[in-house]
C-alpha cells in the first residue's frame, strides 16, 4: 500500500528505479507473451493435422488387423506378432522455443521391412504384412503426436505463466508503485511547503525580534540625556 511507504527522498528514488525496471520488464514480457502465442498457433495447426492423421491411421490399422484376424485367423495373427524380435526405440532431445524447453522425439526400428518383423514370409500372407505396416504407421503418428502435443502443452503453460506476470505487473505492481510515488511526492511537497512556511515564520519572527532589539537600543541613550537634563534642571531627583 502506498501509505506504508516512508515519504523520504531516498524511498522515492528507489521507487522510481523499481518503476523503470518494472516497465522494462513489462514490455519484455509482453513481447515474450506475443511471441509465444505466435509459436503456439503454429504448433496448434500442426497438432490438429497430426491428431487428425492419428485418428485416420488408427481407423486404418484397426480395419487391417480385423481383416487379417478374419481371413487368416486370430491364431495366425497372434503368432506373427509373437515372432517380433526388434522392438522400436525412442530417444528424446530437448529443443528451445522462445525459452520453452520442448521434447524432440526420435524413433528407430518402428517401420520395418518384411524380413525384419520376425515372422517367416512363406507361411504368412500379405494381410499380415499390411496390418503390421498399418500399425507401424500408427506408431509413427503416435510418436509425432506425443512430440507436438507435449510441446503444445508446455507452450500453453508458459503462455499462462507469462500472461499472469504481465497482468500482475500491469494491474498490481505498477499501479502500486505509481501510487507510492505519487504519495511520496505529495508528502514531500507538503513537507516542503511546511518548511517554507516555517522558515518564513521564523524569518518574520527574527525580523520582529531584531526590530524590537533595535527599538530597545534606540531607547537606552535617550534615557541618559533625560537624566542629565533632569539633574541639571533641578528636577526632583537632584539637589
Amino acid at each position, binding site marked *: 500500500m502506498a501509505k506504508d511507504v516512508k515519504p523520504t527522498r531516498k524511498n522515492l528514488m528507489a521507487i522510481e528505479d523499481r518503476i523503470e525496471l518494472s516497465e522494462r520488464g513489462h514490455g519484455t514480457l509482453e513481447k515474450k507473451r506475443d511471441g509465444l502465442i505466435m509459436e503456439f498457433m503454429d504448433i496448434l495447426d500442426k497438432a490438429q493435422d497430426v491428431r487428425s492423421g492419428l485418428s485416420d491411421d488408427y481407423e486404418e490399422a484397426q480395419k487391417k488387423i*480385423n*481383416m487379417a*484376424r*478374419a*481371413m487368416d*485367423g*486370430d*491364431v495366425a495373427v*497372434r*503368432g506373427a506378432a*509373437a*515372432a517380433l*524380435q*526388434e522392438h522400436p526405440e525412442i530417444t528424446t532431445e530437448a529443443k528451445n522455443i522462445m525459452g520453452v524447453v520442448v521434447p524432440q522425439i526420435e524413433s528407430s526400428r518402428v517401420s520395418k*521391412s*518384411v*524380413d*525384419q*518383423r*520376425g*515372422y*517367416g*514370409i*512363406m*507361411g504368412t*500372407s*500379405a*494381410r499380415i*504384412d*499390411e496390418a503390421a505396416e498399418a500399425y507401424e504407421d500408427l506408431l509413427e503418428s503416435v510418436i509425432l503426436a506425443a512430440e507436438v502435443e507435449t510441446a503444445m502443452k508446455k507452450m500453453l503453460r508458459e503462455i499462462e505463466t507469462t500472461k499472469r506476470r504481465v497482468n500482475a505487473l500491469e494491474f498490481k505492481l505498477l499501479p502500486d508503485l505509481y501510487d507510492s510515488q505519487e504519495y511520496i511526492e505529495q508528502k514531500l511537497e507538503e513537507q516542503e511547503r511546511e518548511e517554507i512556511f516555517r522558515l518564513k515564520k521564523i524569518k518574520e519572527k527574527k525580523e520582529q525580534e531584531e526590530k524590537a532589539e533595535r527599538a530597545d537600543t534606540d531607547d537606552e541613550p535617550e534615557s541618559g540625556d533625560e537624566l542629565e537634563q533632569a539633574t541639571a534642571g533641578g528636577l526632583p531627583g537632584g539637589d
Partner: protein
Amino acid sequence: MSARASNPEYVNARVRSRRAVLFADEDYRKLIRMGPSEIARFMEETEYEREINALGTRFSGVDLIEYALNRNLAKHFDDLLDWSEGRLYDLIGRYLRKFDVWNVKTIIRGIYTETPTEEVSTDLIRAGELPDSTLDRLLEVDEIDDVIEILGGTVFYEPLSEAYQEFEETGALVSLENALDREFYEHLLDDLGRPQEGPDALYVEFLEAEIDFLNARNALRLARSGADLDPAAYYIEGGVLFTQAELSRLVGNYDELVDHIADSGRYGDRLGGALARLREADSLIQFEHAMDAALLEYADTLSSIYPVSVSAVLSYILAKEREVENIRAIARGREVGLTEAEIEDELVIL
C-alpha cells in the same frame, strides 16, 4: 512310407460322404446374416456339434468358433491318414505335413515369447503326421534347441539345425520359420517325376501351381517391400512359373514381375483379372485371394476328372480347409462389424 498297398477307392468312398456335408453357398449366405453367437448355435446343429460342445466350457464367442473349426479340421484330416495306406498315405501325409509345420512354428513362437503351455496347446491343429505324443513332448520343453532334438529323425531336424545357427546370431525366428516352410514345399513333389497323363499328372500340376503361387506371392511381397533381401532364400524349387534366376531378377522390378505372371500360359487367364486390379490398387490382398480361388478351382477339377485318386482326396482337403476359413472369416467379420458385402468379397467359394 506305409508298406501296404494303396487304397484310393476305399478312402475316396469315405471322402465322398464327408464332402457331401460340406457347407454350400446358401449356408454361407445364412451365416453372413448372423451374429457370432448365432453362428455358434448354427454350428451346434451341424458337423461341428461335438467340437462346439467340447470347447464350450472353456471358450465363448468367436474364439469358440475358431478353436472348434480347427479341432474339427484336425479330426477330419486325422481320419484321412487313419484310412489311407501305402502310397496314398504317403501322398496325403506329405501334404498334411503343413500342419506339422504350423504346430512346430506355434510351439517355437510359444517358447520365444514364454507363453504358457496350455495356451500354445490350444493353438495347435493336430492334423499332421507328427503323433500327439511327439507334440506333447514338444510342448513340455523350454528351449528351442530341445525342440530340434525331439524332432530328430523327422524331415524337419536337419533344416532346423542349420537354421538354428542364424537364429542364435540374429535372435529372430524368421530363419527357423522359413526353414520349416521350405522343407514342407520342397518335399511335396519328391519321387513324383513329371507324369504327362493320368491322375498323378493332375496331382503334380496342382502341386506345381501351389508352389508357383507361393513363389509369386513371395516375390511380389519382396518386390513391394523394397527390402534388401536375397530372393533366392525364398525360392522354392518345383514350380514352372519361375526359375531361381528369373525370380532374383524380377524381384527388383515390380511391374515386370506382374507382367511375367500375366504372360504365363498356364495361369494368365485364371489370374488376369486379379493382376489388373493388382496394378491399379497396389495391394496384394486381392491377388492372394484370387490365387486361393484359383487353387480351389484347380482342386475341384481334380476331383471331377479322376474321382478315385489322390487328386480327389486332395480336392476334399482343400475344400474342407476353405470351409473352415470361410466360416472363421464370417464369424470374425461379424464380430468386428464388417458389412455383409465386405465379408462376401473375402469368401472363397466355388
